[in-house]
Structure formats: C-alpha cells, structure tokens
C-alpha cells in the first residue's frame, strides 16, 4: 500500500521539470490560443454579416468548431510540457481527474461534453432561433460551456449546454435562412370566412418581405369567443421576421377593417409566448 511519501514521489515523476523556458512556452501557447480564438470569432462574425445571406449561417457555424480545434491543439501542445506522458502516468491522472470531476466540476464537465455533442448533433447553431424552456431568441454565441441567446427584447440569456440532456430544444429555422412567421387575427360576429381567408392570403402575397419560394397558409379555427385566423408565411431573411409579422399584422387588420369585420376582444386571453 502506498504511503504519503510514495504518493509524493509518484506526483514528482508525473510532472516534468518545467523550468523557466517551459513556463514561458506555456504562457505563449496559451496566449496565442486565446488570441486566435478571439480574433477568429470576430473575423468570422464580421464575415457573416458581409457574405451573401445564404452563407451567413454556415460561416457562423464554424466559430465553435474552430474554437474547439484551437483548444484541443493548445492542450495537446501544453500537456507534454507539463506531464511526463507514460501509460502509468496517464492512468494515474485519469484516476485523479475522475474524482475531481465527480465532485467539484461535474456540472461544468457535463456542459462542456454537451457542447461537444451539440457540435455533432446540432440541436442549435449560431444564428438559429431556438426555444429552450421559456426562452426564445437567436443563438448569438456558442461557448464551450454555454450559449448566449438574444431575445426579441434584446435581452442576453446565458444557457448551459447541459440543458439538452433533460429538455427539448425547439429550433425555428434549423440552419435555414428563413423561418415560418405567424400573424394572428381574431374575428367575431357574422362574416365571410372564405373571403377573409383569401384577403389575408393576399396580404401575405403583397408583403415586400415575403419569400416567394415558400408556402403561405391561412389556418382558421373556431373558439367560443370568435374565429382565429393564423396567417403563416416566410420572410426572405429570418432577421426580418418581426418586421414581417408587423407588416402582416398591420395590413391584415386594415383588410379586416375594410371588410367591416369586427375584431374579437377577449380580456384575459393568455399572451402567446414571444415568437410563437
């Protein structure tokens, strides 16, 4: 059985005699890695704004991948400097690491591992509009541990990757450059539903934001308080989704007014989740 002196001796064998040169090399490598990650993120995010719209999400998607590659390269460079890499030492490290992770850093490790899984499974990507729990917004930044979600109200929400283990993630565009937008109208009283439906279809067809390659749907359903019309269409760029919904809503209400159709007003109706 090992005593304390054996363990100390074992740790001494594990770690190389680094010296000043080794420390300097480690500092330089870490600094280079951080600068590379930071610069590449800025350049790629700038590039995403100037390339054609269809390439934007592909460019943004390379940011977390590049960061992972640089991180792995940095670790691979540094580890041999610090540790004497032998099979026995690797087993020794792994044993100690598992104890540390198990108790102190399990959540962080879980998020980091989930972040790597996300890169392959892609439940969300940079530039996607996603719903995670109660939060809906654009994935602006994908870090190693968490993402930054920017909501329609311009709030920035940080969400750890490990949420994907236990919650569903809803993506409105799943990497595409457009997404479905829904404008809702509520009518009450007697009215010609078919006429209103056709008129709302024309409202979408005549919107300057419309993506002509995607379908337009008007879904009608009946409620005790009246009739709900959901006008579903796609903008040519998902960044204009709220302006598109606004345009549809304003002009749709104008059409209802022109047709003499009364809007249903139901106090206490639950508000739809943002973006839903």
């Amino acid at each position, binding site marked *: 059985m090992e005593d304390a002196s054996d363990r100390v001796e074992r740790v001494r064998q594990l770690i190389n005699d680094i010296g000043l040169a080794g420390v300097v090399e480690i500092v330089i490598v870490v600094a280079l890695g951080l600068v590379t990650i930071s610069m590449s993120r800025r350049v790629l995010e700038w590039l995403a704004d100037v390339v*054609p719209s269809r390439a934007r999400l592909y460019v943004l998607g390379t940011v977390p991948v590049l960061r992972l590659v640089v991180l792995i390269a940095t670790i691979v460079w540094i580890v041999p400097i610090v540790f004497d890499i032998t099979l026995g030492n690797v087993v020794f490290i792994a044993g100690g690491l598992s104890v540390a992770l198990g108790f102190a850093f399990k959540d962080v490790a879980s998020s980091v591992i989930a972040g790597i899984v996300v890169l392959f499974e892609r439940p969300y990507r940079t530039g996607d509009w996603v719903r995670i729990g109660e939060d809906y917004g654009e994935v602006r930044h994908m870090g190693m541990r968490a993402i930054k979600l920017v909501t329609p109200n311009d709030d920035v929400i940080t969400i750890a990757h490990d949420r994907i283990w236990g919650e569903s993630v809803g993506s409105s565009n799943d990497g595409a450059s457009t997404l479905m937008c829904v404008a809702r109208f509520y009518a009450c009283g007697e009215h010609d539903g078919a006429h209103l439906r056709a008129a709302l279809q024309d409202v979408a067809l005549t919107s300057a934001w419309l993506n002509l390659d995607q379908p337009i749907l008007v879904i009608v359903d009946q409620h005790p308080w009246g009739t709900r019309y959901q006008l579903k269409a796609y903008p040519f*760029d998902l960044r204009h989704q709220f302006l598109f919904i606004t345009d549809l809503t304003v002009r749709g209400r104008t059409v209802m007014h022109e047709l003499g159709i009364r809007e249903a007003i139901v106090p206490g109706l639950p508000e739809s989740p943002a973006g839903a």
Partner: protein
Amino acid sequence: MMPDTDAPERLLIALGDYRRPAAPAHHAVERLGDRVRRLLGRDSADAVQDDRLRRERAVALQDSIPAPGFDGIVDALAASLHDWRADTSSASRIRVLVLPPCERQDLMRQVAGRHGLAVLDPPPRHTLNGGSRTPIAEPGGESDIVVVPRLQHWFLRHHGGLATGRALLHRMASGSRRWFVGVDAWSWRYLSRAAHADLLLPAPLTSPAWDADRLAEWLAPPGGAGGDAPVSVRTVKGGEDVFARDEDGALSHDYLRELAARSLGIPWVAWPLWQRGLRTVPDEGGAGPDSGTRALWVTHGIDPVLPAGHLTGALLLLQSLLVHDGLRAEELPVTLPATFEVEALLCALDRAGFIGQHVARGDWTVLPSAYPVVRTALAEAGWSMPPL
C-alpha cells in the same frame, strides 16, 4: 452590321433554358478582389458615392460611337411572331414572351406595329388599387391577335391591387382570342406566385443571352466612310483592340466576354456599361498605332455603390421597382412597408446612379447600367431570383 435574324440560335428559347454568359476566370478573381477592397474600406465610405461617378461620366465618350439600334431584336421577335401566327392550333393560342429587366425600347409595341396588331394598354396604375377589378377594354376590330406589351403594368403589389391583373389572366386563359403577351422577368416571377400566371398561361419563351460574339457584332464601330478614319477601340490597360480576332476567328481579348458576363447577356444592359467604359485621350483624340485609325479606349466603369447604412430599405425599394417595371413616387409607399423614408431613398439612389425618372411618365425605374449590381445585391440579401 445587323445580326443574322434567320439563324435558328437567334430565335426564342424556353425561359428555363436561358444561360447567362460565363465570365473568364481571371475576371471573377478581379471582381472578388474589388469586392474585398471595397468591404475593407466600407467604414469610411460616404452614404452615397457620387463624386467619382460624375467625373467618370464627364470623361465618357458619347459621340464617336453611335448608339446601336435594336431593330435586329425587333426583327427576331417579329419573325418568331410570324411563325406562331401561322399556327392556328388551339394549343398555341397564347404566346408569352419574358423579357429581361430594364427594357425601355418598347420592343413588343414595335412588333405589334409591324404586324398591324391591336394593343391592349393597361389602365392607369392609380386605378388598380381600389380592391375591385378595373374594367378591361379589350380592343375590338378585325385583329386576330391582341398584344399586351407589358403585363407587369396590370397590377400593384398591394392587397387591393391584384384583382385587375388576375382578371386579365383569366380572360386570356378562358377566351378564344389569341394573345401575344410581353412581361418582365421579375414580374413574371411574382405573378406566377401571386396570380398563378404560370398555370393560366403557357410556358414562356425568351430571347437567348447575348454572348461576346453577338455583342462584338452589335457594338463594333462603323468602318468609316468618306474622309472619316475608322475607329478602333482598345483597352486602357494593354492597348489591345477589343474587336480583334485570332486566326481561329475567336475574339483575342476577353473584354467583350467580361462585358457579356457583367451585362448578364442583356443587350440593353451591355450598351450603357459599354458607354460608361469608353474613354478618349484628352489632348489628341487618341491616335492609334495605324495611320488613319482613330483609337478610343475602353475599361470597365465603376459600379455604383448602395447607400451605406440603408441597405435593406434601398433593396426593398429597388426590388419593388423591378417587380413593377417602374413606379411613380406616390405609388411606391403602397408597395413597401410603412417604416421606410421613400423620398429620401429615391434621392440617394438617383444620385448614386441606380434609378432614373422617366420625364414624361414620371415613374422611377432601375437603370440598365445598375441592374447587374442590383441583382447581385438582392441575391446576396436572400431574395428569390428570376432566371434573367
């Protein structure tokens, strides 16, 4: 020298078969380099870069190269119409011709005039937005074919502005009369979606793209008559004659291939791009290497630049002008979201060389010379593109 209108390759093709001329590989690299340089200098650019354009226009030569006629194109369309007219089967009761954007020569009306056909003109645009159908005054008389020169002028992109255009399409599809319909490519794309034009009317035809050889035939300066010296046109960079051919008969220099690619194969786009690139040596009028030859110089002109910081609004406005083939200032706000300052954008785009206003009609249209830049910008912003 007029193009040979009897050659089969000159006649109409299916819209889906239209292929734009490809640019030489080095030209694509140069354009990418220009693009990157412009992107890197974007922060310091003014909202509208018009000073440099005015200098270029002052130098551009207008008088030594006379404007080529479009009679050859009219001849080709008239010949095609003649053949179709002789075919009286019901399957070919309607012929649709999709024309590239920015056509200002009234080609369809010229064709109608040559054949003595009746023309159905659109009602004033401001009457289209009432929500109800404007009566369609179909011409009577003996004319067996009715020509609709510009189908794009029969609608307004507003929920109340589609009824008349739809009614016309249904009338054409369901009646027994023969129709020869001209429509702009952007408008055809829109009407196919908004009014099922692609279902009501037969598959459209179009004119093939103009490649470098065809442009050379069309743009070549006159050989000179009497005491006039022939004119040669040479590149500014290397002094090569852009119309010279090698022993195989192919054009020796790539300038006209680049022009064909930049103009997207559209002759009325190529003409102003060609004009914009013409230069003269200020002192002597350009003495060429051969005695008795007067040299003009040509380069690729500078493309206009969209207003910085107002890109989305500018593109929305330009796209609306393309879909409608021109709109008056008071008609534009009806077709655009309410948040944009239409008048300010019109001023900026006019100064930048993207749009022009028809003196008599008062409608604003995209200038042919700016169309390639506008099309590229719209494609990059995510808009759906027509084939032309």
